[in-house]
């Protein structure tokens, strides 16, 4: 600390603004050859945020992995104050386990942050998958865990803005149904492109979304600014086709 700095420090940091992002990575067996590209992309995301002090001060990132089960590999943190763990390949592709764990973690984080007096923006969840769900009830689980029905007041009121990214075998019709809520969620699909290029393009979109959103926080009108894919990236983007009536 600069000796000449005039500080009034009382050990309480209530009122700090926090913009939470959750990165949920598919580490199923089919990702075996892509883990290096995935880990490099996540590390690149970390470096990009740390280079922007204004973004680093407000954005907090949680990294989760899922296969047969889901887990937190890096709790919600300021990127400059943590190191990114290396993701390792595991088993199948169970979407439901990811949705359930994400809902639990978001609720826990929200309660924890609010208890400490933070002001929290609605979180954004980036869901990366290379495969189709192996669990038949993924859509029902998604609706029951990560969505909210305003008319009946049921579901997850603190739901995230859910942004799915798919490549390789991830079906586009599934991605369309996972983008949530209908008026804000977007989906992204890497078609006809190499996996390494797809992962690089997807993580660039996530990086630019975090940076531009972080740069809008703290100025009165924070906005989740979902970035468009780069020209020539082979990635397409679309609006949510989440079915509100699905049960």
């Amino acid at each position, binding site marked *: 600390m600069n000796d000449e700095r005039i500080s009034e420090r009382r050990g309480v940091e209530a009122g700090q603004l926090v913009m939470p992002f959750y990165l949920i990575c598919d580490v199923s067996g089919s990702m075996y050859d892509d883990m290096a590209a995935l880990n490099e992309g996540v590390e690149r995301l970390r470096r990009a945020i740390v280079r922007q*002090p204004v973004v680093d001060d407000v954005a907090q990132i949680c990294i989760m992995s899922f296969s047969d089960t889901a887990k937190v590999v890096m709790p919600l943190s300021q990127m400059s104050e943590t190191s990114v763990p290396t993701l390792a390949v595991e088993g199948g592709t169970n979407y439901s386990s990811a949705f359930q764990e994400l809902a639990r973690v978001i609720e826990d984080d929200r309660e924890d942050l609010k208890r400490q007096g933070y002001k929290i923006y609605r979180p954004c969840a980036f869901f990366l998958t290379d495969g189709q769900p192996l669990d038949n009830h993924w859509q029902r689980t998604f609706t029951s865990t990560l969505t909210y029905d305003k008319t009946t007041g049921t579901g997850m009121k603190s739901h995230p803005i859910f942004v799915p990214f798919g490549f390789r075998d991830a079906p586009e019709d599934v991605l369309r149904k996972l983008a949530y809520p209908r008026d804000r969620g977007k989906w992204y699909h890497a078609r006809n492109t190499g996996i390494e290029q797809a992962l690089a393009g997807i993580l660039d979109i996530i990086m630019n979304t975090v940076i531009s959103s972080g740069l809008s926080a703290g100025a009165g009108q924070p906005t989740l600014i979902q970035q468009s894919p780069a020209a020539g990236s082979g990635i397409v983007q679309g609006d949510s086709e989440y079915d509100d009536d699905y049960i």
Partner: protein
Amino acid sequence: MTSIQVGDPRVAASPFAIGDPGRAGTELPAGPPGVRIGQSDVEFSAASLPGMVVRAVTMRGLLHRANEQPRQDAFAIARHRPAPDTPARAVAVVCDGVGSLGRSDEAAVLVSRRLAELGASGAAWPDAFPAVNGELRAFAGEPPRGDAREAARLGMATTAVAVAVHRTAEEWIGEVAWVGDSSLWHLGDDGRWTAITGTAEGDDDDFHSTAVRPMPTADGACAFQNFRVPAGALFVMSDGIANPLKWCDDVRTTLAHWWERPPDPFTFAAQAAFARKSHVDDRTVVGIWPDEVGTGAGDPA
């Protein structure tokens, strides 16, 4: 970007901090000159009126500095001299341009100056606001239709809070009017902060959100109230400083300590720019204290 260390002379943040200054408050370089040539990062003024001492400052927040965008806040101060035997009144206006619209800095300057001019001429706020709302609407022109990006680039809007006040031996007596979330606060002699205007937020139980109704409005209407408060000092603010004041005990305590009496105008500006993690919006505040030494030194009353 080259690595910037704490204490680096390229950093232009205030030397004052309350709590954790954040990385932006210690590392963000000043960056290139502002995109609005001639607009300074910080403007401040001082004034003395019979029974009153005034300090005013507006500054570009660290976020606009990081984004290489102009300051969108503005203030204007003036004096209203009514009939010869009635006390002069301080007029203070604070405006906070809407960040998503590219020309909101122009709206903030226009509205603050025109409201202060009308206040100085004795116009009542409920008459002044619709008049200035109409002027702003005419100045802004019609946004281009069908091109949201261009409409945002050329659009303008601003909040406004306007105060006219005089001091008696015992209390402050005045009128305040506002559109949007800029606000008027009273700092009591006991160190307690009280919002005189409404400070409602768009938060629900779960998450923080913001929504303001800025000028130009459809009908030019404003919220208005008369007030009388005892002793202490008055502060007209944009939300860049009102939000940390509302949310943070240590900000309330520290600002109450710093501003118990009027600091010199240079110190006041630096204090209002205190660094605090994640609070990086533009800030504007006009402080009005009782003149406890004389009757407004140098003022002919």
